């Protein structure tokens, strides 16, 4: 008991010391320090997310290794996010021409590569690195009529696929549905009785609902917090998370870090808003 209490105290002391050290703008070395040594996963991950920009020039092999084998969630996040930026580039290139000239085989080849990663058996952060690129491939494929929007919903609910694959399809589905009121409207998305074929679809719906709040129907900070903490559905909680973030971007780093500490194992969507805001502040 005494040992564990000491450990906790020691951990807190380290964290407090770390917070004091990083009160001001963060260098790459400082962020690496936080990502590598921070015991609180959300804070470590926030630093990792901020690091991804600085890691843009590293090789794919290096980043793959980091995403797979980084000692902490922060290091693995840094690798995964930087890798994601590398994977997105060729996707946008293959669609950087008139629609008629986009080469279906090239698109297919990229889809196969990203699917192999997102739907593969590799570690979680490696699979996560392909989400954005796969989402953008799906979007481009709908433009090229290689698939339709409805098929994305089917992919997003396929339980034989990984969470990462489903999430990419879900995000693409809602991206392409954003102009369809029967799918994307405040009324439809706020419906707590609505059933979603997968958590990933609910998550992506929540992101878009949050975007609608920010874009057209702003909520107060207090309303967003309540929604993020205790919204009746995953959709509403994620919407609250998205809606809360703009209120947090100017919050001092120490305040964000302290808040995350308070939310260690509770209110995941609410905590995520603080984590993302912290990543933004770390990156400034």
């Amino acid at each position, binding site marked *: 008991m005494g040992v564990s209490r000491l450990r906790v105290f020691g951990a807190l002391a380290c964290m407090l010391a770390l917070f004091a050290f990083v009160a001001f703008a963060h260098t790459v070395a400082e962020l690496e320090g936080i990502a590598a040594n921070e015991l609180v996963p959300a804070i470590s991950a926030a630093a990792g997310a901020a690091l991804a920009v600085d890691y843009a020039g590293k090789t794919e092999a290096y980043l793959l290794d980091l995403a797979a084998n980084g000692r902490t969630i922060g290091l693995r996040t840094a690798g995964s996010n930087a890798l994601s930026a590398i994977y997105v580039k060729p996707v946008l290139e293959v*669609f950087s*021409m008139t*629609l008629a*000239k986009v080469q279906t085989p090239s698109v297919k080849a990229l889809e196969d590569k990203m699917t192999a990663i997102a739907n593969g058996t590799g570690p979680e952060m490696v699979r996560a690195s392909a989400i954005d690129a796969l989402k953008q491939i799906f979007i*481009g494929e709908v433009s090229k009529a290689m698939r339709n929007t409805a098929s994305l919903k089917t992919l997003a609910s396929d339980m034989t696929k990984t969470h990462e694959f489903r999430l990419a399809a879900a995000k693409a589905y809602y991206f392409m549905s954003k102009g*369809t*009121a029967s799918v994307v409207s405040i009324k439809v998305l706020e419906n707590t009785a609505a059933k979603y074929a997968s958590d990933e679809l609910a998550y992506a719906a929540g992101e878009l609902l949050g975007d609608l709040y*920010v*874009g057209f129907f702003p909520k107060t900070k207090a309303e967003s917090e309540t929604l993020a903490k205790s919204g009746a559905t995953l959709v509403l909680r994620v919407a609250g998370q998205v809606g809360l973030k703009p209120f947090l971007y100017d919050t001092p780093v120490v305040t964000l870090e302290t808040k995350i500490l308070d939310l260690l194992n509770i209110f995941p969507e609410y905590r995520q808003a603080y984590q993302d805001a912290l990543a933004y502040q770390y990156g400034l």
Partner: protein
Amino acid sequence: MKRLIVTLAALTAILLIPAAVMAQGYATKPADAVIIPLGVAGTDYSKLEPGVRGGTVYVGTISNPKKWNAVTAHETSTTQYTNIMQPGLVNLNPITAGYDPELAKSWEVSADNKVITFHLRQGLKWSDGTPFTADDVVFSFMDLYLNTDIETDTRDVLQLPDGNFPVVAKVDDYTVTVTCSVAFRPLLNSMTANIMPKHKLAQYVAKLNPAVAADAFNQVWGLDTDPKELVGMGAFMVESYTADLNVVMKRNPYYYHYDSKGTQLPYLDKYVVLTVASQDVMLLKYQNGEIDCFAPRPQDIPILKPEEKTKNLTVLVKGDQPGFGTTWVVLNWDTQNQKYRDLFRTLKFRQGVAHLFDKETMIRNLFNGLAVPQWSPVSYLSPFYSGRETYAGPVTEKNAVVFEYSIDTAKALFDEIGLKDVNNDGYREFADGTALEITLATNAGNTTREGACLIIADDAKKAGLKITTNFIDFNVLVNQLMGQEDYKAIYLGLTGGTEPHSGANVYMSTGGLHAWHYSAATGDITDVEKRVDELMNLAAAEFDLDKVFEYYKEYQTILSEDLGFLYTINQAFIYSYYNRIGNAQVASPIATPSGNNGLTMDLIYKKS
């Protein structure tokens, strides 16, 4: 002797070429340079700021240009480049939409309003270093725009109410007169026409060079032209073009605009227009930072707004300012099949189709509420828009011509003209039982237009009218609209402005873009078209703006009732840019940096 002459000629050529290659801009600022008072209090540009030179900005497009020839261009995929390469005697002020002196530094109008004397800026040069003179102005108007060998829409807007055309004459190297047989109020608007380089292009005009074919100029400056051959006086010139990939525009060292600190514009070294597969891909590239500024769709705003802080970008939304221009469905009154020709010329059929347009659903679903129903050929922002009750008065829509969305009304009209579902397949046939199917085409990649077509087709089905959609390349669509290929129905749009007469090329019965009924020009003219022609001429000859307003009010009413174009939706103004682009906040319905009127790209700069 002959050998000596040949040798001298060759020597001259050798001496000249290096001089042209070395042409690098003005040694000193021309005395007649245009000074843009960026950041100067009390001016139109007070909210902008002087920038710094350097850098490249990236914008996007989903279409290739069709050509580089401003005179023969009909489409924005071309004019977005030609308008920036070749300015006119006057230009639109991007802040106020008024007319600013451009290549002309001043002008006087005679007491009878029939003669305008333009005083040209002196000391200006074309991008290849050749001096600009009155010869270029006279050439542009008398040998190009008013030359019937040349296919140009500009001739339509230059035609005077009495059917004559202005005469542009040189007084001296820097003075021209424009003389009209009757007073012509919109003349100043017509003087925004691109001024073209005589020294480069006269050789292609049969009137000046009998050795070439009559239509030679119509083929000149196509996409296979070496960009070095393209000459202009605008802020940027084409540096390179790679089909389906990009157009690179580079700074013109002889541009004559300077800022209030004496810095020559444009600030940017280059801007690059990236071709992308669709508007959705454009949004992705913008989110990825590969495009610096663009015009999002209303449905894109929820995606971008939350990213304003984290990505340091701005989303401009002006819900009370629909953009200039029109969006519509056109039925081809001259389509090859006689049955469809007769059908499309039947007013009750067109009315039935108009009643199928669920504009509220389009606004809600496709535009997130950021649009207004459109019914008029005149832009919402024009002081002549007859949604106002007086010239420049507030918009009340009291005069709006409305075809309410009503499937039942559409059904009744179709019944009335004998279109019935004879074989009980859910779709109506012609009265003689033959199948009736209308293909509605629009440009692939434009998702709001595609979405609108799908909504229309869906509602048509409810009324028993079979409409199938076809999304095709923009330039192919333009070919169809120009009458070069047959079509049944097209969903498209046109640019617009404050001056309704600038639509003469569309709405006059002889207009080059009178898309629904080209045969009106050869005598097959309706009473409505005759009256529209009369009204346009009356309005053009009248200087009392209240009277002009009344003429244009009747013009808008009868055009809207006649349904040559079946109008749909007018989107609110939306723009987005990364905050690393200085002066991008100049974007408005009048002009955006990436827009097709070529204005304001010379004012923006890279902050870092």
